[in-house]
């Protein structure tokens, strides 16, 4: 197998890794501030992609230039999902505080199904896959067997920027400081004057906005989206976050890229792409048996 061929797999894996990391960071943020798993996360990602698609169709009807449309599509998806994330938190997650965490998991799992089935039923012919517009330049550069597509590079760059932005926001801003305080010791954070509910709502908005970036990136990469895309991406994002150590930001990022690497290795190894998920999940199962609390296990003093 030649080098160009391997490099191709590496680049493809990188795109997937960024998308998975974007989803995983959301899971880790939610768990960080509230110790909950929000299982509607994958379906919020899908809704973000459909919101972007609907926005694009509306904009192209009134003849907006593709470059402007690209920005507006991202803005609509991100703002829309930030809002949905905050709403889910306010009405489905926060009221369940004090109830067993399993209830939160179940209620958000059900809500995810509601989102998914609603898109299928109410989006025009929503049960069929939808072509996603080619909004990024699709120039390609050939290096032997490696075809480097410009759109893939932009997707990776955007995703990395989103993750760096999140990281800087959490490490450097006063609001980020409050998020970390709540994650480390909720009561003491409140004693310092942190408005707990506002912090939690905004954290959910932030995580869901990242899911929207992931959803739109998926659409741009495959040029196709469907109502069930959130199922697999949600599961992979959750697995990545747990693999890295739920609650740890770096763990989630590392977990996302690791999962993509496993899929890529699986695809190369078996030469039958369909086996890649079986391989990746099997390895994740083994890794979790070996390191039950994740690879970058969250210690109390290391949270978010």
């Amino acid at each position: 197998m030649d080098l160009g061929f391997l490099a191709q797999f590496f680049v493809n894996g990188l795109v997937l890794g960024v998308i998975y990391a974007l989803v995983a960071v959301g899971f880790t943020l939610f768990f960080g501030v509230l110790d909950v798993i929000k299982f509607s996360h994958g379906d919020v990602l899908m809704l973000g992609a459909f919101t972007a698609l609907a926005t694009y169709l509306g904009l192209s009807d009134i003849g907006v230039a593709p470059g402007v449309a690209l920005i507006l599509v991202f803005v609509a998806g991100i703002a829309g999902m930030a809002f949905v994330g905050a709403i889910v938190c306010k009405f489905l997650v926060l009221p369940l505080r004090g109830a067993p965490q399993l209830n939160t998991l179940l209620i958000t799992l059900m809500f995810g199904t509601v989102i998914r089935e609603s898109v299928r039923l109410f989006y025009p012919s929503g049960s069929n896959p939808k072509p996603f517009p080619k909004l990024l330049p699709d120039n390609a550069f050939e290096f032997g067997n490696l075809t480097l597509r410009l759109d893939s590079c932009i997707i990776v760059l955007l995703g990395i920027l989103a993750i760096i932005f999140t990281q800087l926001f959490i490490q450097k801003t006063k609001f980020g400081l409050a998020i970390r305080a709540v994650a480390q010791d909720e009561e003491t954070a409140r004693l310092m004057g942190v408005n707990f509910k506002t912090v939690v709502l905004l954290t959910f908005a932030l995580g869901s906005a990242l899911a929207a970036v992931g959803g739109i990136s998926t659409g741009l990469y495959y040029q196709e989206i469907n109502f069930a895309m959130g199922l697999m991406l949600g599961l992979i994002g959750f697995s990545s976050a747990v693999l890295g150590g739920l609650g740890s930001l770096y763990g989630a990022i590392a977990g996302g890229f690791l999962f993509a690497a496993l899929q890529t290795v699986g695809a190369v190894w078996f030469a039958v792409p369909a086996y890649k998920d079986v391989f990746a999940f099997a390895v994740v199962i083994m890794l979790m048996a070996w390191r039950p609390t994740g690879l970058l296990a969250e210690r109390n003093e290391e949270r978010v």
Partner: protein
Amino acid sequence: MTPLLKIENTVSGYDEADVLAGVSLDVAEREITCLLGANGAGKTTLIRTLLGLNPIRSGKVFFKTTEITGWPTHEIVRLGITCVPEGRRVFPAMTVLENLRMGGYLNESKSDISERLDYAFTIFPKLKERVGQLAGTMSGGEQAMLTIARGLMGNPELIIFDEPSLGLSPLFVKENFRVIQEINGQGISVLLVEQNVRQTLAISHVGHVLAQGKIITSGNTETLRESDALKAAYFGG
């Protein structure tokens, strides 16, 4: 004169059981008021209740003339109440400096924050050497210093200390009590909740003794020292 903090007939507890059975207590301006009591008397519950961390079942809490019964915690502390919580609760994954910044979370004035930072470092010079260290990796005594320094970063009129001597070596306890007295000397009122009777009474102006969810005796520290009720509260005698 109206007291700075007034607690009236407070009832509170966990689940089915009431821990506080109608507690009334005043904290006067510029004084150190102490609340003594054995383990399980309800001291921490009282603090949690007045700060809005535990729901109040009945009774009222006033800060100056404002009724703060049932307010959310972040609104209460905004009025100028700071709590140095029990058990050295620093933010373990934050640096010393970040912990101090959290203490000044509600302080909007950058110049005031840097002044207070300097003040905290003059009281605890050791913290200045450790600004970049993660709080979770410090010793218990250092963490206790940090929680006190953090409490000074806001602009408190009242500081509530919840068992500052708990689990500390005698040397640190002595140092902490000296600092509390010094803080009070700056005109900040103090509610000091403690089990350590002798040293607490030595620095307080007024005291209350809590046993089984009720104030069993109150008074100035000289009378309290001789009080049988105080001995009874600790030794059940």
